[in-house]
C-alpha cells in the first residue's frame, strides 16, 4: 500500500509542486493550507509522514509539530519541517519541537525524497 504523506503549506504553488513530486514517486498525498487544518487532518487521516511549513496562518508549524509530538497518539508520525528560514536558531527551534528533519526551501528534490524514504523505513 502506498504511503500517505500530509503536506501543510499556505503557498498553493508550493503544495502543487511538492504534491506532483511526491505523487510522481508513488506516494499518496493529502494537503492542508493552515496550521489548524493541518492539525485536524493529521489527527483524522493519520498520515505516514508530514511535511510541515513553519510560516502558517492560524497555528504556526512549530506549534503544530510540538502538539503532534507531545501527543502519544501521533508522536510516532515523522515530521519534516519545511521552511525558507535558514537561520541556525530556526533549526534549533525545530529540533526543540521534536521535528525529525528540517529541509530548507528551495530544496533539492533528491534530498527530500531520500529523507522521506529514510524516515519511512524506520
Amino acid at each position: 500500500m502506498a504511503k500517505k504523506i500530509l503536506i501543510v503549506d499556505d503557498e498553493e504553488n508550493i503544495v502543487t509542486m511538492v504534491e506532483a513530486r511526491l505523487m510522481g514517486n508513488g506516494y499518496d498525498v493529502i494537503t492542508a493550507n493552515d496550521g489548524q487544518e493541518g492539525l485536524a487532518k493529521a489527527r483524522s487521516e493519520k498520515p505516514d509522514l508530514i511535511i510541515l511549513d513553519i510560516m502558517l496562518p492560524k497555528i504556526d508549524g512549530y506549534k503544530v509539530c510540538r502538539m503532534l509530538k507531545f501527543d502519544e497518539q501521533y508522536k510516532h508520525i515523522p515530521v519534516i519541517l519545511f521552511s525558507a528560514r535558514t537561520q541556525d536558531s530556526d533549526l534549533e527551534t525545530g529540533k526543540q519541537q521534536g521535528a525529525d528533519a528540517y529541509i530548507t526551501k528551495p530544496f533539492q528534490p533528491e534530498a527530500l525524497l531520500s529523507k522521506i524514504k529514510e524516515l519511512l523505513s524506520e
Partner: protein
Amino acid sequence: MFENLRIGTRLILAFLVMSILVAAVSIFSVIELNKVQGPLTKDIPAGLLELETTSHLDGLAQKIRFYDQVLTESARNYAQSGDKKWKYRYKNVEPQLSSAIREAIEKGDAEDQQIFSAIQKAKLSYADLEYQCLASVDIGDRQRALAILESQDYWQHKEEYKAGLESYIERRGKKYGDTLEVTATKVDQIVQDTHRLVSESLQFLTIFSLLSMLLAVVLGIFVSRSILNPMKSLERGVEIIGKGNLDYKIRVKAKDEMGRFATAFNDMTRKLKESYAGLEQKVREKTSELANKVEELEETKKTILKEKVVSEALLASIGEGMIATDQNGSIMVMNPQAEAMFGWTADEALGQSFWDVIPSQSEKGEVILQDQRAISMALATGKKVISTAYYISRDKRKIPVAITVSPVRLDDKILGAIEIVRDITKEKEVDMMKTEFISTVSHELRTPLTVIREGVSLVLDQVFGQINEKQKKFLWIALEDIDRLKRIIDNLLDISKIESGKIEIKREEVDLVHIAQSVLATFQTRAHNKGLELRVKSSSEKIEAYLDRDKIIQVFTNLIGNAMKFTEKGHIEVGVEEKGGEIQCYVADSGKGIAEEDLAKMFGKFQQVGRTNGTGEKGTGLGLSISKGIVGLHRGKIWVESKLDQGTRFVFLLPKFTFQDQLRDTLMVGMKEAKSQKSALSLVTFEFKNIEMLRNAKGRQKTVQMMTQMEAVTRNCLRRQLDMTLWNRDTLHVILPTTIKENAFHVADRVHKSLVEYLSKEDPAQQIKLYYKIVAYPEDGSSENDLIQHSQAA
C-alpha cells in the same frame, strides 16, 4: 648709687656683709671663751690641786702622828700585858704608817719631802726597836721588851720623829695658813676674774650681735627696696599701659636690670603704638578694597545668573535626557528630556536616589541591583561607563535606553556623575526590523524560487512525460540559474548579517589541517574530471585553533571553488602553516591568474572577474566578500597574490587563538580592572564529566549545540553585563569581575542549579556529572596564568 649696681651684685654684697658679721660674732665668741679657758683649765685647777694636796698632806701628817701613838701604845701595852691583841694591833697599823709616810714623801713638795724622809728614817729606827720589843714579848721576855721601850735609843728616835712632825706642822702652820689663804684667795680671785671676764664677754657679744642684726636688717631693707621699688613702678606702669594708655612711660631711675627692662618695655609700647597706627591705616585701606570687591562680586553674580540661564536653556535643548547625581547617587539635576522620558519632574526627583526613581531591568524583566547599575560603577571606578539597559518609567513602561555615564572629578575626589540617557526604542525597533527584514526578505524570495525550481525540475525529471533534448537543454539552463539565484540569496543573507554585526562566531577547537583536507576532498570528483591535482601541505600533522568551524569551512570552500573555476590544468594546493602566533592558510592554483588592475577589486561585492564557462557553479560575486567578512570576524587578514597566467594564491591569516588564549585574554581585562581598583575577580569553572560519552552517542554537532545552549542558560543566570562566559569541550568558564570569592559561590550555585535542570532534560540518564570550582583574585593568584593554573589543578 646703691641702685646702680646690678641686683645680683647687691644681693651678693648684702649676703656677704651679713656673713662677715656672723663670722665676726663667732670669732669674738671664740676669743672670749678662750680667755676663760686659761683660768678654768689652769689656775683654778692648780689652786684646787694645791689645796687638795695640802689638805691631803695634812691628813697624812695626822695619820702619821696618830699611827705613831698607836704603835707606841700598842708596843707598851703588849710589853706590859703580853696580850696578843696588842701585837696584832701593832702589826696591823705599822704597815699603814709606813705607807702613809711613803705617800707623804711622794705627795709633798721638796721641803716636805725632806721632812718626811727624816720622819721615815726615825720611824724605821724605832719601828725596828719596837719589833725587837715585840719579839721579846713573844718569847716572854717582857722585861727586855720594856727595857727596849725605855732605852735612850728608842726615845731618841721618837724625838726625831716628833721633831720632824713638829717641823712639818710648824711649816704647815705657816704654810697651811698662808697657802690655804693664798690659795683660797687665789682661787677666789681667779673665780672673780673669770666671772668678770664672762660677763664682759657676754655684754660685748650681746651688743655686737644686736648691732649686727640691726645692720643686717637695714641692709636687707635697702636691698629689697632697691629691687622692689622699681618692680612696683614697672607693675604700675604695665597696668596703666595694659589698660590702653600707650603714651605712658615707665620711669625707673636705676640703670640695673629693672632699668633696662623699663627702657625695653617703653620701647615696646612705643612700637605697639606705631603699629596700631599702621594697622588702623591698613584697615581703612582694606575696607575700601572690600567695598570694591563687593561691587565686583555683584557683577559676577549677574554674569553667573546669565550663564545659568544659558546653560539651563542648553540643557533643555539637548535631545537626550541628562541626569546628574552627587557621589551618593542622589539626583541633583534633571533636564526636561529626562523628565519627559521618565515621567518625573525635576522637583520631584531632586534629592532622591537615582536608583529609586528610575529602576532598571534586564531584558527578561529581572531587577538590576543598585551596585550593578551604570552610575554605581562610574562612581566606584571613576571611569566612564557606556551601556544599554531597560529603564522603568513612572507609568511602569520598560524603555530601552543607551546610557553614557561620566564621573565628575575634582582633583582626586569623585563629586558625582552625569548620565546621558537616549531612548533607543526606535533604534531597537529598526534593528529588529532589520533582522526581521532580512529573514522575511530571504523567506519571501525563497518561496517563489522554490515553486519555480520545482516546477522546472519536475518537467526536467519527466514526471509529466517525456521531453526532447532541446527542451531538456533549456530547462536545464533555467535550473542552473535558479540555483544560482538561490546561492545569491544565501550569500546576501550572509553578507548582510556580517555587515550588520549580527553574526556571532561560535568558536570551538578545530584542526585546520583536517578541515582543509576534508573540504578539498569534496572537490575530488570535479578535480579528477578536469585532470587537476589536489594536494594539502601543512607544517605539522595537526594544527589546532579555536575557531568557528562552519565558517572556516565556508572560506575554504569558497577559495577552493574559485580555484577550481579558474584552473584548467595543473594543481590546486591548500596549505596550513603555523607561523609564530598565527596560522597561515592558502589556496594556490596554477590557473589563469588575475590582472594587476583587478587585484584590488577582488574582495568587492558582485565582483566577477574573468568568468569562464565550464565546470563548477556559476559564482555569485559575493563569495570573496563573505570570506573576507568571516576572516575579519576572526580578527585575521586575507589577501591575494597573483599574476596573469602565473596562477593565483589566496592567503588568509588567523591569529592562533587557542581556547587558553581566549580565556587568558578575557581574564586579563578583568584582572587589570581588579588590580587597579583594588577589587576582586572570581573565575568559576564548571566541568562536565563524561561529556565524551554524549559526544560519541549523539555526535559532535549535537554536543556543540548543547554546550552553546548551556552557555545561554548560564548567561541567563548572570545579571550583569560585566560577567562573561566561555566554553570549550567539557568546561564552561564564568568570569565575574569585581566579585569576591564568597559572592561567587552564590552565583555559581545559582548557575549550577539551572545547568543541572537543563541537563536533566537533555541527559535524563544523568550520565553527565557537573562539578564546579572557584578561584579568585587575589586569594588564589595574582595573574591570569595563576588563576588558570589553579582552576585546572584537580
